[in-house]
């Protein structure tokens, strides 16, 4: 399993740097992780993941923690406040200037780092990259939706990959930085575990890893809600000197009180996904550090714009003025950033021209204008698991009652809510839903297109929950997708945001805060704006 030659290289690199060992001694001895091994206990407040097959997993809380550590992608995002795309397996970011992006914008040519390799020694070459992308597209398990733009992936030569896309699509490069659908798997491992019915070894990869990342999957026990990662001593990037996290025990605990107690009692080193109250309480405890940041999750109320009376623009605007944004964000959610555009600050962001504030007088005025001077009855559905969303709607209900609007809150099982809302088209969908979504990559285009574009209408596409169809908006989206001129792109985006807020098929509430806490003996941690608290840069961290 260990490639002697490769391993020798990494060992010698560090030994030579330390100026310690004569070359002859470097050959056989493997730096064992058993001597004074550091175990790090990471707890995530969520359920365990169903699958860690990168060609399938699309959920941000569970599998993410594992996949981001055991697999590499061509690019990843780094940065605490904004997202910078950084080449990982790729040598550099392709641009029109360096020839990486063709003039017609249809071809992306990426050169790989020659030293990148899997733990068994096989190289992470163009064949492996092509194989991984083809595999995800062939499996058709949902996350391939993110790769819809790719017409063909080619291995031009050993170190060069070329993506050909169906039409010029300016966000394409950013989309490659998402952890979802962009992990590179080892074709040798897949081949070794493939069967006739399962040529892509999907069954095997559901619970085993085949990546080139800094950690190996030592065990995966979803029935016990836990998994263990071990340091990949043959990591092609090499481990710098100094202490590292040798073993990481990941536990998924769904009761937040329990997870919090574990940190307090010292049974956990890091807990991600805490509530605002928990964070305040933990901040007073010596030895514990609390962290808060905003990631990409956004809450909204979507109205079914094909169903009366929600097809009435003025009514929607009235309802938008009746929501007490600040009380919800500060009081109920305990923090977060109010949305003044379709997305929070990221590539392409700009505030929309129309803004909504909590103004009951204005709401009442618009209500009359819309034709409902005496109020009306409305209904919004929310998932049972969304406790804060439910509280927000209850507050909204009280405020709406004071202007004569009678809101009925329908609490449903989350899956049932989406089934009913998405399966039968607008006529059989729910009147309105409260939910949240997150961009998969930090480009404002993505949410504009999937929330407002007619190609994202359910049931065929995802995720235009408001069933909003407006040819003007579709034209804007197409302009954003196809133009290569950055100024033109931004102008089109601005038009899109303005139209979105003027028509208000969705009321955007806020980007919610992501909260975590850890022992103060942990160092090297950084917040990742795109990945949130469920991800920690384990390879850069140490304990004690």
């Amino acid at each position, binding site marked *: 399993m260990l490639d002697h030659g490769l391993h020798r290289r990494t060992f010698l690199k560090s030994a030579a740097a330390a100026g310690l060992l004569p070359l002859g001694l470097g050959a056989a001895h493997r730096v064992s992780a058993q001597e004074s091994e550091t175990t790090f206990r990471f707890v995530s407040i969520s359920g365990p993941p169903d699958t860690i097959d990168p060609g399938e997993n699309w959920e941000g809380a569970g599998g993410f923690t594992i996949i981001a550590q055991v697999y590499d992608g061509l690019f990843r995002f780094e940065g605490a406040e904004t997202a910078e795309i950084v080449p990982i397996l790729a040598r550099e970011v392709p641009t029109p200037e360096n020839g990486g992006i063709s003039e017609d914008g249809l071809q992306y040519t990426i050169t790989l780092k020659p030293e990148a390799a899997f733990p068994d020694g096989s190289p992470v070459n163009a064949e492996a990259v092509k194989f991984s992308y083809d595999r995800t597209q062939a499996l058709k398990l949902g996350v391939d939706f993110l790769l819809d733009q790719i017409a063909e992936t080619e291995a031009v030569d050993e170190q060069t990959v070329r993506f050909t896309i169906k039409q010029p699509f300016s966000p394409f490069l950013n989309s490659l930085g998402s952890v979802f659908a962009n992990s590179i798997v080892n074709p040798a491992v897949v081949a070794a575990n493939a069967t006739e019915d399962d040529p892509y070894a999907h069954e095997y990869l559901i619970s085993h890893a085949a990546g080139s990342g800094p950690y190996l999957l030592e065990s995966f026990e979803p029935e016990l809600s836990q998994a263990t990662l071990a340091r990949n001593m043959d990591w092609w990037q090499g481990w710098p000197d100094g202490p590292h996290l040798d073993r990481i025990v990941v536990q998924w605990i769904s009761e937040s009180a329990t997870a919090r107690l574990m940190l307090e009692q010292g049974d956990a080193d890091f807990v991600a996904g805490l509530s605002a*109250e928990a964070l305040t309480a933990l901040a007073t405890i010596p030895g514990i550090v609390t962290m808060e940041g905003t990631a990409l999750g956004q809450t909204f109320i979507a109205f079914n714009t094909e169903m009366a009376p929600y097809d009435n623009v003025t009514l929607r605007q009235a309802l938008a003025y009746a929501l007490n944004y600040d009380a919800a964000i500060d009081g109920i959610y305990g923090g977060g950033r109010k949305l003044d555009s379709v997305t929070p600050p990221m590539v392409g962001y700009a505030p929309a021209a129309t803004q909504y504030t909590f103004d009951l007088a204005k709401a009442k005025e618009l209500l009359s204008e819309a034709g409902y001077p005496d109020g009306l009855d409305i209904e919004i559905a929310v998932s049972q698991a969304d*406790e804060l969303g*439910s509280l927000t709607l209850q507050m909204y209900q009280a405020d709406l009652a004071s202007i004569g609007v009678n809101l009925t809150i329908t*609490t449903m099982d989350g899956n049932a809510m989406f089934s009913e809302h998405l399966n039968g088209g607008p006529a059989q969908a729910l009147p309105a839903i409260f939910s949240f979504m997150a961009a998969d990559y930090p480009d404002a285009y993505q949410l504009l297109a999937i929330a407002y574009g007619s190609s994202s209408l359910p049931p065929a596409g995802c995720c235009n929950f408001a069933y909003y169809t407006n040819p003007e908006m579709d034209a804007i989206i197409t302009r954003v997708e196809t133009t290569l001129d950055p100024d033109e792109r931004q102008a089109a985006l601005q038009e899109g945001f303005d139209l979105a807020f003027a028509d208000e098929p969705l009321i955007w509430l806020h980007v919610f805060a992501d909260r975590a806490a850890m022992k103060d003996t942990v160092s090297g941690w950084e917040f990742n704006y795109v990945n949130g608290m469920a991800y920690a840069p384990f390879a850069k961290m140490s304990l004690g």
Partner: protein
Amino acid sequence: MSLSIHASVTRSALALPATAGGLAWLRAGIVWLPLVILLVVTVAGRALAPYDPDAVLVTDRLQPPSLMHPMGTDPLGRDVLSRVMTGARNTVPNVFFILISALTIGVLMGVVAGYAGGKIDTVLMRITDVFLAFPALVLALAIVGMLGANVRNAIIAIIIVWWPWYARLVRGQVLSIKNELYVDAARSLGCPAHRILLHHVLPNSMAPVGVQALLDIGAALLTTAALGYLGVGAQPPSSEWGAMLAQGRQFFLDAWWLTGFPGLAIFVTVLIFNGAGERLRAKTLSGWSRI
């Protein structure tokens, strides 16, 4: 916990050594007075509550118990005491409804099975066997899970799970009565079956079942609350006690009063009903000594 077991504990716990006769009124008061208070709160809770139970005031959220708010406030600033008081109206009548429905269905089935005998009896008893094969909460959970999580379905689920117990009980009674002399006499006089059932069999088999039902009120409340706690019963913004427990769950480490007081309300109510049921049983059935 299952019904008859519950009853036996209550009975034996309350059947403590008798105190002197002079304090009998005090003993009675301990049981009946709380019941009266409970019923008053159930009916008039909203009028008696100090605050509007639905008044949202987010700035006042999660206040610990104080003079202003003896039971604290919830995450939306609503007064917990007021919600507990109005919650009685959403909780207690449900329990009565469950028992009356389960009793009605159970008695009907049991009487028919017991009196008709033969094939009808066998079929009906097989059906009850199927339902009795499950621990109550497990089946109720499965049923609500299938039908959809709300208070109406939770009530339906518990009724479905409980009627077999009563059917069995009644059938047993009917079997022992139907060969009694007076029934025989009525039959030989040419009395039609349905009259025999209505006037002779039914009244005599109802008594133990009725008492059993009274003692089961507590258990019914606990089951309803359990479903609420699991999130498959009443849904927010309802002030039903189980729903309040479910909402308070995520805050229980920092705001213990959100689960503490509804939990206490459930506890006290169960105690009151158990006590009252036991007293009633003691008064009405002097000879009834078996489980």
